[in-house]
């Protein structure tokens, strides 16, 4: 404002200058004051929070000391004094922020007042020049403004686009899908079932240890008439396996999966089922929770004894050191975790099972009284534990099966002295049967409405799975103590049950009453569980002799072939091809490449 122009005399001009100087000084001082108070305010704000009475490390240390010397009166006194000082400081700080605020407001008011006065004293009178091109300038401004608005629009649009990129959400968009999310959480509907293959597809494949349902019996299968490893007759292919493992192969679609491990290396392998070519191999490393120190495991079990499993979308491998890893069928890692280092003197060997998007993990270890054994159901997509159950058993080596028995899906587990069945949905215990003895290794099977379990070298039990609670006395259909195996699992076509003991003794029982129908000494040690293929009993001895016998009420040898390598794992039977893992390689018996077709 044209205030300065008012005075014309030099004296008043000088006094104005003095006044102005003074005002400018006030402005500078006031702004300095504001800055100082403002920064002090902020610094104190931050410091006092850090120094609040709760967080004083000194007080915490003193209180810790008092816990060790509860009778130290001097220490108590010290704590009280410190406590008082800290609290005083705290409340002083609270008071300061208020006064500080008012100081700031005051300083600002002085700054503004003096600043305005000073500005007024020195304001120049406006001398606007005559402007004639108003229209032109207006048009120019409007044009510029339009472009600027367009710029704002573009920036907003770009911001929106960037924001919409983060549109992925775990919360479903449609309320209808909420129920699914909820069910998924409670483990009821389980993981996303829509994503999973149909049951028929499971039956056409070999997704786990001993076939789709753990009873290694396929009804539609043609064995090659002649097998000769020397000239390759009846052999589709043979491929070396880079790492040792006692786990059996699993087959899904046109892929064969294996795991192998040494003390320090662990890996999962995928082979082309048609050609035997190694499609991918993935090391399993850096698993969270994995033991830092390598674990000593006896050679008789090795570091990759558990057989892998697949839910049709992912494959899962479990290793002797407890590492559990999931990969997609294409070999991309999905998740990996350790449920703990197994405490197992012979080495961990229990295989995995899958049921409706859940990975069933029977983790028996230690001694029963240690209470360390658990049965887990993990979400196979994420590895999240859906439920877990404590098991009253010590270490075991048997693999659980999931069977639709007595009208409900049951997980049947062996371990310690107990056969325990759990509801597959939520892990509720359904029934338990006492009768096992020793180191439980053979896995249970479910056939003809009965659960067949082996107490190693002791008894073969047939149990009706429709009971509740302890069914030891009530639900045993029959038992037999003849030629009971100690390692291998039984196999049944519903009419007959076959066993092949490690001594080489094969036995056949009637499922109805457990009557022994025949026994035959195969005269060779057997480690792999026998399998049934369309009326043929196939046994592979440890030395690598493949023996085919009729699966009938009388023993009849049909064929014999030498695989010329030691065999410890059970074969997988898919689409007229038999996949055998020897200690060195993976052999596919059947018609040559190009003819392998997996039914979907």
């Amino acid at each position, binding site marked *: 404002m044209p205030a300065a122009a008012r005075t014309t005399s030099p004296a008043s001009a000088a006094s104005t200058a003095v006044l102005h100087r003074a005002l400018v000084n006030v402005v500078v001082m006031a702004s300095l004051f504001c800055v100082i108070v403002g920064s002090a305010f902020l610094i104190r704000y931050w410091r006092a929070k850090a120094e*609040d*009475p*709760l967080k004083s490390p000194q007080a915490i240390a*003193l*209180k810790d000391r*008092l816990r060790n010397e*509860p009778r130290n009166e001097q220490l*108590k006194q010290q*704590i*009280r004094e410190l*406590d*008082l000082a800290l*609290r005083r400081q*705290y*409340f002083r700080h*609270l008071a300061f*922020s*208020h006064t500080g605020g008012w100081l700031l407001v005051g300083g600002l008011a002085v700054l503004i007042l003096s600043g305005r006065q000073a500005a007024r004293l020195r304001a120049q009178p406006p001398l606007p020049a005559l402007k004639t091109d108003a229209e032109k300038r207006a048009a120019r401004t409007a044009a510029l403004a339009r472009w600027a608005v367009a710029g704002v629009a573009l920036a907003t649009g770009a911001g929106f686009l960037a924001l919409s990129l983060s549109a992925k959400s775990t919360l479903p968009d449609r309320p209808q899908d909420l129920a699914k999310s909820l069910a998924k959480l409670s483990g009821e509907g389980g993981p996303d079932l829509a994503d999973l293959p149909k049951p028929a597809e499971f039956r056409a494949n070999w997704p786990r240890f001993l076939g789709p349902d753990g009873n290694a019996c396929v009804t539609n299968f043609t064995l090659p008439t002649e097998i000769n490893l020397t000239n390759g007759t009846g052999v589709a292919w043979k491929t070396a396996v880079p790492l040792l493992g006692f786990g059996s192969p699993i087959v899904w679609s046109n892929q064969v999966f294996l795991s192998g491990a040494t003390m320090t290396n662990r890996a999962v392998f995928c082979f082309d089922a048609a050609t035997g070519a190694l499609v991918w191999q993935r090391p399993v490393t850096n698993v969270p929770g994995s033991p830092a120190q390598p674990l000593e495991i006896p050679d008789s079990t090795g570091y990759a004894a558990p057989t892998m499993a697949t839910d049709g979308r992912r494959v899962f491998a479990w290793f002797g050191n407890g590492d559990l890893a999931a990969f997609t069928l294409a070999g991309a890692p999905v998740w990996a975790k350790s449920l703990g280092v197994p405490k197992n003197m012979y080495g961990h060997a229990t295989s995995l099972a899958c049921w409706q998007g859940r990975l069933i993990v029977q983790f028996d270890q230690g001694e029963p009284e240690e209470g360390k054994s658990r049965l887990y159901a993990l979400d196979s997509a994420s590895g999240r534990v859906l439920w877990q159950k404590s098991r009253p058993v010590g270490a075991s080596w048997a693999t659980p099966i999931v069977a639709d028995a007595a009208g409900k899906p049951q997980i049947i587990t062996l371990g310690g002295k107990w056969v325990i069945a759990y509801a597959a949905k939520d892990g509720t215990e359904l029934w338990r049967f006492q009768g096992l003895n020793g180191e439980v290794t053979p896995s249970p099977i479910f056939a003809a409405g009965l659960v067949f379990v082996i107490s190693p070298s002791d008894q073969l039990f047939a149990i009706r799975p429709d009971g509740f609670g302890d069914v030891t006395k009530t639900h045993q259909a029959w038992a037999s103590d003849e030629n009971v195996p100690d390692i291998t699992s039984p196999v049944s076509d519903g009419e007959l049950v076959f066993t092949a003991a490690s001594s080489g003794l094969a036995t056949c029982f009637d499922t109805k009453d457990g009557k022994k129908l025949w026994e035959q000494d195969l005269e060779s040690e057997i480690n792999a569980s026998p399998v049934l293929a369309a009326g043929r009993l196939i046994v592979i001895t440890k030395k690598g002799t493949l023996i085919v016998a009729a699966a009938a009420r009388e023993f009849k040898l049909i064929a014999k072939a030498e695989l010329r390598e030691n065999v410890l794992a059970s074969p997988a039977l898919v689409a007229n091809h038999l996949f055998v893992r020897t200690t060195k390689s993976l052999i596919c018996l059947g018609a040559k490449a190009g003819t392998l077709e997996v039914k979907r």
Partner: protein
Amino acid sequence: MAAGLSQEEPVNRRQFLRGGLRVAAMTGVGALVGALAGRSATDGTVWQIDPARCLRCGQCATECVLEQSAVKCVHTHAICGYCELCTGYFVPDPNALNTGAENQLCPTAAIRRKYVEDPYYEYTIDENLCIGCGKCVEGCNRFGNGSLYLQIRHDRCLNCNECSIARVCPGDAIHRVPARHPYLLKTTVSH
């Protein structure tokens, strides 16, 4: 008409449009009033903590816009057990059952302990000291009867349009309540 006000101008298109829009806007405001009048309350509302939903997360002490939170611990004595060993007053495993600073749980010593008769003690809150952290509330609820709990004190609360504690409350415990019944006190009669 005063000098400052616009003089009557001839009604042109622009003005007509303006007048029409003004009438429309007025109508809109009127409609808004009509729509909301039936639903609006003459009674105001205030923020309050539902003690049944409070999870004692400690954020009442740190998130309030006030330097010293408007949330305070309150005590319903009729629920109190008057315990000698009060888990809301004493730290877990206190050195001795006295008022020494080393034994007190409250970070600002806002709880007063007074002898009543053997073996009962009365506990009261000094609201000038209480910062609403809820430490004592957790101790009392976990081990005792839950007679200590947090409430927003309306002599301090600024009644912000959006409560900054409610925004972060993990228990979703803070909501608006009618100003006529501004507290959600625990009573001896359960609901």
